[in-house]
């Protein structure tokens, strides 16, 4: 019998909950203590997750039934398979360093207690999704993640854009979750179980086999910001930068990908085809849109959208293993990019406009080095983390479908272009504002995570991980990639190389003039096409014109039928007539008469029930 690791999982899951509760109850005003507790717990669970990843390659199963309703068992349990161990490690490891970064970044914030409590409750929620062994538990933690995301986006709730962004993220996610919960109901009705292991053993439903997958996919589309529900992610950048790094780049948005990998056996070809097309399309478009953003965080958010699209495409290509691998690699380098952006923003006194930066490489050498390393990984430079997973997905697309391949190639190209632009505008050339002129390197709490995540993991993750973690799932996935990666003639490698060369040209192109965007100067129409928020405008039109008209019509019906006919005429009119007549005869103001009526009524009722 293999050793039981469920107690280890208990610790991993409930430590952050304990920290969050303790902070919420006792440390709301004690920001420093809260930061220390939350960060300590984050590092503790990272260590525990690393232990779980390295000591065992056997699956951990643990389940306790919470309630049994009409033959349906609702339970709480763990299903720790290879993907879950990898995801646990990635989430807790990246999160630990982001916690440390936050200690420096949030130094001057008055509400640090709330912030770190929020981070801890987020950790509890995301780890719950990772370990969950049934759909309902996943859903509960899914909503908790949505709540903590809402809470952390709205950290600066006195700013309008943060308050609105948090609301938008919450509402858009609800749209996806509606499909998710309908999927759970459908699954219960047809299969009678929500347990992943039991569902995996079942045959697909007759009738509409695709429906269950399609409904559950809605949750993924909302949480992972897939087209057409991607609109919340770029706005969510109004939250503090560590939150953007942790939740809206590395972990939460990737949870959708992880969930899809977990239930990939429920997906039919129709659903997968849709995910592949929409993912690849969004990857290409979002990559290009990143070229037309001047806010460094918004540009990175579009980059995240592009990578989420690539992961979605991998799911659609029947390769959930590659999607999870890319999610892990992306977590490392995108967390570094966001933390680097946070360090830059911190150094430039909260300036986020890339056109007002420039020349920061000399003033912030550590940040610059790590940011550039992560950027190279993002561009899939050979032998860096992003290369292993991204090129493998592009390669898989090439085997599968040439349209998908073309879209992903465009996405790879766009990645190189916006990355080159970002690095050029932020770190090179002259300083374009007083803030950039007086920029300074960040304290060690912020640079250490950058070095660890950026230099060590963005650069070496794909290369070193199989050697570091021999017994893990990573090795099983990454080993064939190593072999594949040396096929220099593979189309993916050619595309990647071409994209890198064009990226180098883009680097020169954006260096032409300081303080202006070269594309904006040369092709203003293209630039504004990319900058324009098509889907937001569309949704605005839908809400203002379509949904509002429908709502007004329904309100009119309500006024006429419910309020008018049912309430005013039937509900109020008839009793009013009866009451008027009865009041004349019965309402005499004699207490004894009322008491007598009460007794008589009781006796009548008693007679009625006893005589039957």
């Amino acid at each position, binding site marked *: 019998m293999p050793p039981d690791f469920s107690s280890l999982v208990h610790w991993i899951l409930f430590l952050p909950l304990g920290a969050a509760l303790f902070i919420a109850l006792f440390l709301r005003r004690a920001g420093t203590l809260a930061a220390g507790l939350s960060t300590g717990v984050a590092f503790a669970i990272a260590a525990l997750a690393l232990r779980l990843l390295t000591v065992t390659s056997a699956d951990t199963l643990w389940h306790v039934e919470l309630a049994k309703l009409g033959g349906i068992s609702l339970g709480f349990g763990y299903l720790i398979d290879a993907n879950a161990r990898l995801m646990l490690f990635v989430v807790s490891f990246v999160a630990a360093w982001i916690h440390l970064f936050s200690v420096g970044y949030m130094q001057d914030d008055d509400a640090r207690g709330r912030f770190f409590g929020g981070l801890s409750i987020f950790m509890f929620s995301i780890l719950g999704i990772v370990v969950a062994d049934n759909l309902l538990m996943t859903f509960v933690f899914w909503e908790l993640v949505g709540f903590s995301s809402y809470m952390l986006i709205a950290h600066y709730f006195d700013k309008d854009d943060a308050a609105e962004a948090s609301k938008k993220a919450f509402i858009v996610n609800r749209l996806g979750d509606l499909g998710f919960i309908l999927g759970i109901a459908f699954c219960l009705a047809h299969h009678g179980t929500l347990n992943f292991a039991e569902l995996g053993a079942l045959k697909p439903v007759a009738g509409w086999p695709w429906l269950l997958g399609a409904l559950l996919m809605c949750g993924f589309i909302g949480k992972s910001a897939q087209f057409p529900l991607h609109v919340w992610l770029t706005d969510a950048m109004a939250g503090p930068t560590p939150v953007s790094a942790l939740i809206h780049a590395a972990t939460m948005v990737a949870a959708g990908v992880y969930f899809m990998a977990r239930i990939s056996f429920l997906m039919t070809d129709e659903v997968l085809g849709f995910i592949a097309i929409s993912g690849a399309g969004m990857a290409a478009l979002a990559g290009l849109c990143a070229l037309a953003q001047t806010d460094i965080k918004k540009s990175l958010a579009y980059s995240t959208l592009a990578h989420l699209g690539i992961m979605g495409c991998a799911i659609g290509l029947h390769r959930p293993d590659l999607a999870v691998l890319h999610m892990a690699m992306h977590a490392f380098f995108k967390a570094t990019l966001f933390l680097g952006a946070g360090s830059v923003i911190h150094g430039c006194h909260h300036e986020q406009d890339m056109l007002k930066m420039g020349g920061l490489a000399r003033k912030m050498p550590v940040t610059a080095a790590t940011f550039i390393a992560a950027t190279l990984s993002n561009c899939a430079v050979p032998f860096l983390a992003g290369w292993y997973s991204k090129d493998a997905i592009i390669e898989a697309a090439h085997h599968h479908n040439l349209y998908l391949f073309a879209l992903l190639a465009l996405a790879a190209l766009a990645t190189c272009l916006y990355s080159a632009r970002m690095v050029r505008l932020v770190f090179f050339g002259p300083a374009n504002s007083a803030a950039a002129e007086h920029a300074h390197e960040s304290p060690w709490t912020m640079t250490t995570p950058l070095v660890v995540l950026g230099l060590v993991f963005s650069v070496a993750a794909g290369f070193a991980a199989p050697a570091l973690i021999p017994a893990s799932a990573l090795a099983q996935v990454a080993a064939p990639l190593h072999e594949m990666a040396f096929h220099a003639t593979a189309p993916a490698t050619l595309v990647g190389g071409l994209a890198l060369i064009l990226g180098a040209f883009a680097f020169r192109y954006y260096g032409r003039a300081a303080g202006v965007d070269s594309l904006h100067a040369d092709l203003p129409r293209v630039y504004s096409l990319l900058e324009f928020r098509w889907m937001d405008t569309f949704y605005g039109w839908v809400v203002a014109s379509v949904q509002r008209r429908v709502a007004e019509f329904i309100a009119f019906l309500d006024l006429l039928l419910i309020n008018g006919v049912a309430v005013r005429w039937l509900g109020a009119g008839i009793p009013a007539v009866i009451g008027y007549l009865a009041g004349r005869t019965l*309402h*005499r*103001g*004699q*207490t*004894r008469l009322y*008491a*007598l009526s009460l*007794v008589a009524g009781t006796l009548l009722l008693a007679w009625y029930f006893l005589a039957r």
Partner: protein
Amino acid sequence: MESTTLAHHLLLAGLLFAVGLTGVLLRRNLLVVTMCLELMLAASTLAMVAFSRFNHKMDGAIFVFFVITVAAAEVAVGLALIVALYRRRGTIQSDALNTLRD
């Protein structure tokens, strides 16, 4: 001599209840009406104690303590209301208190 049975207790409780009910229905003085209401409550409490005794369970007997406690509080409020009523209106005859009729 035959020992008392459950029926005896229930008969007594029923008679007490009937006395109270009659009082509530016939008397006009609110003070007396309140006392009669208490009599009805006591009758039902007595029935509960009797059931508890003859079923050999202490639940009802314990429950009665709570009933009595609540009844005491309720009487305090009721008497206070009657005193307040008398001060304001100068009467506690229920037939005279009918201003809400119109």
